């Protein structure tokens, strides 16, 4: 595994739906083992940026570099190889409703490893236990609560021991305690496995609790306003909108001195 250089780099990303521009000129770097937050007000294109990063939607211009290799410029096979290192937790969990939790987690293992069914089941049971769902292997997604679906989705995202975990609004729709537990789990994964974590969220508490680095997207100017550690941005960002966002709309006009 190459060390040193940034793990993920976004270069001059511009994203659009047809002619409708969402964001332009996005440039940021994510280091290995970092928790990176993509934040901004509703409708600024956070989830779209995530879709581009996980290879679901192509950018209009620019590219995302993983370990220095341009993702969108590479071939389909190479993209699949890069994507194998990803784990994704979708906003609603997006568990496959026709399969049990164990089958949900096992699908990636079945696809990419030589493990036999018993071994796959064992891994699935272990991953479920990690997220506090031990014993739920044979439940269908429709039989568990929203918070449990999210955790099961995380277990599925972790099935292949990914290098990078992507989270789309992990704490949306969770009660404060479950949200806190999920935050702790994210930090735990990062610390024990060295996983790089990319989180789309606008929950301030989460942002400050887990974020090492961040990018702030603005829906008005349609570009990034700031990038850096969220706590520092809150206290010292020269941009009023960024500070105001991070202080729940109560920021003073002047930034405090560094």
């Amino acid at each position, binding site marked *: 595994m190459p060390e040193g250089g940034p793990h993920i780099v976004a270069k001059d990303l511009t994203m659009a739906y047809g002619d409708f521009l969402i964001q332009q000129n996005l440039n940021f770097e994510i280091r290995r083992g970092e928790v990176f937050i993509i934040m901004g007000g509703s409708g600024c294109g956070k989830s779209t940026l995530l879709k581009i990063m996980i290879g679901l939607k192509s950018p209009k211009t620019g590219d995302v570099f993983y370990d220095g290799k341009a993702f969108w410029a590479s071939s389909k096979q190479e993209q699949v190889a890069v*994507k194998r290192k990803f784990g994704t937790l979708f906003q*609603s969990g997006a568990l496959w409703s026709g399969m049990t939790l164990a089958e949900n987690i096992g*699908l990636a293992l079945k696809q990419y490893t030589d493990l036999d069914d018993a071994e796959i089941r064992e891994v699935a049971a272990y991953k479920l236990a990690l997220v506090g769902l031990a014993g739920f292997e044979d439940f269908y997604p429709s039989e568990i609560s929203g918070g449990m679906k999210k955790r099961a989705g995380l277990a599925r995202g972790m099935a292949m021991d990914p290098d990078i975990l992507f989270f789309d609004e992990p704490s949306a729709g969770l009660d404060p305690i479950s949200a806190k537990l999920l935050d702790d789990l994210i930090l735990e994964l990062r610390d024990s496995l060295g996983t790089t974590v990319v989180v789309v969220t606008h929950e301030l508490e989460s942002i400050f609790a887990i974020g090492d680095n961040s990018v702030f997207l603005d829906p008005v100017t349609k570009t990034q306003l700031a990038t850096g550690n969220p706590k520092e941005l809150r206290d010292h960002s020269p941009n009023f909108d960024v500070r105001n966002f991070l202080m729940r709309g109560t920021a003073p006009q002047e930034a405090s001195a560094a």
Partner: protein
Amino acid sequence: MSAAAITANDAGAGTVQVALSGDWLLGHGLPGPDPVLDRLRKAPKPSSVAFDTGSLGDWDTGLVTALVAIHRSAEANGVQVDDAGLPEGARRLVALAFAVKEREGARRTDERTPFLQRIGESTLDAWNAGKELLAFVGEMILSARRFFTGKATYLRSDILLHIEEAGADALPIVTLISFLIGMIFAFVGVMQLNMFGAGIFTANLVALAMVREMSAIMTGIIMAGRTGAAYAAQIGTMKVNEEVDALSTLGINPMDFLVTPRVIALILMMPLLSLYSSLMGILGGMLVGLIMLDVSLQQYVQQTISAVGLNSLFGGLFKSLVYGILVALAGCQQGIACGSSAMAVGQATTQAVVRGIVLIVVSASVLTVIYINLGI
């Protein structure tokens, strides 16, 4: 409870005094702000509006909407609003309504598209739909190749499940409809053919019609309504739920995982269902024939067997195979192309059935012409 009233009086010095009285509650026949709005527009132009709410009773949104309308009109006419006379709560609610400026371009205006433009747009839509369908066919062929070379990811249990849903589960409805169709044909046949003493040929009529055309078309239409719709709804819902995205991020092609197993299940089941449907139709016809005609069971069966050649049989089965492909194609394509809302799933399902049936009928005509030219 007293009736709501509103009056606008000139109070001197260019001030219009708006007197509000009674209970201003929604759904109780409110007078609305029109007297005030009329006064604001008329000369001599007032310089300010003031309110007198001394005899105002209960009020709710009904009052506030009237006040907002007065404010808007005053603003447009350059008239000062002095809202000191309003109840405290109403004043704050009005202020809240004006706190955030209307976003530019947020208000949608009703545009009527000219007739020619609408024709043009729907033509383009149809053209694009055709292109999408063709692209989907291409993807499906590539996916089928991966399936048969063992490179596709899918669950074998999925195929079995789809086979059960598209096959065994469809038997009751296919039985009912085919049996009745066979009976209807036999009725018509007996009535007409008996007129010149050829009643026994009812057996030929029923058997040929069922085997060559009707069984394939009827099962095709049943499957479009049953299975094609189900495919579109299943895949569409998975799309709404981000389940399809989740597959893609794993590097699993949704075509391989979701579409091909469904198509294969339907392709396997359609000829079997069609064969079964022919049999049911012939049995239905036989029931009517035996009751209404003076023939024995043996004669009727003999007549049926002599009427149906292998050409007719295989011609019919081939048709059912084609219809099966078309129904699965329409259903899965609509599912994959589905937008991300509950409404979109409904539209996709409707479109899946409509397209499925249209494709069946069109291809039935084409195939019949080809068969006739080939002499089958």
